[in-house]
């Protein structure tokens, strides 16, 4: 129930195309859904995040779509650029027994944007 399932494992997109990465979760106690971008040799960096009280959030070329009833959320990268080539992780968190939150990550999507 703590799992977050992410697909596809890898994605190749032409420059200017739309990249779509999907995630699904089971635990309805999750209430915060961030996406992280990771370049080789670097730590994950927050890209964009959403809470379940909204169905969509857009920041520049990045959009999260959230479907609460289906327990799914997705990342859309519009006008994909070669510099977007990285590994993308979805994550989910809920307030636990302690005062901090832990992030549960998806398995990651290796995005390659061809020039």
């Amino acid at each position, binding site marked *: 129930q703590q799992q977050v399932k992410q697909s596809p494992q890898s994605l190749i997109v032409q420059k200017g195309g739309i990249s779509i990465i999907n995630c699904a979760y089971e635990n309805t106690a999750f209430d915060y859904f961030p996406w992280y971008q990771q370049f080789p*040799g670097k730590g994950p960096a927050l890209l964009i995040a959403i809470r379940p009280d909204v169905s969509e959030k857009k920041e520049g070329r990045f959009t999260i779509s959230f479907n609460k009833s289906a327990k799914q959320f997705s990342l859309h990268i519009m006008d994909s650029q070669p510099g977007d080539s990285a590994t993308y992780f979805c994550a989910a968190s809920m307030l636990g027994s302690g005062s901090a939150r832990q992030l549960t990550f998806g398995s990651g999507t290796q995005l390659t944007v061809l020039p």
Partner: protein
Amino acid sequence: EPEVTQTPSHQVTQMGQEVILRCVPISNHLYFYWYRQILGQKVEFLVSFYNNEISEKSEIFDDQFSVERPDGSNFTLKIRSTKLEDSAMYFCASSRDRVDSGNTIYFGEGSWLTVV
């Protein structure tokens, strides 16, 4: 931009040895974390630390692991009696407040541990 710094960037150790991974979180942050990523796999939560004590820990974080904030700036992860399966990238992270809307968690660049 402030960043989380980790040392060493890469450590090779023999099975059974003890390892200490060090982190300097962002200075005004109050929550500290360790995550790990086995090669090619997802990032996994190990432990969170707040107010000088462990806040939450995962099943991975057993008696082999311990964390400490020995002074006002460092945050360490100690792995006793390392095993081959401990080989992974270990990420330290910190956040100003709880990780949810408006409170970003910042990750360091990681310490790559290889157990031989």
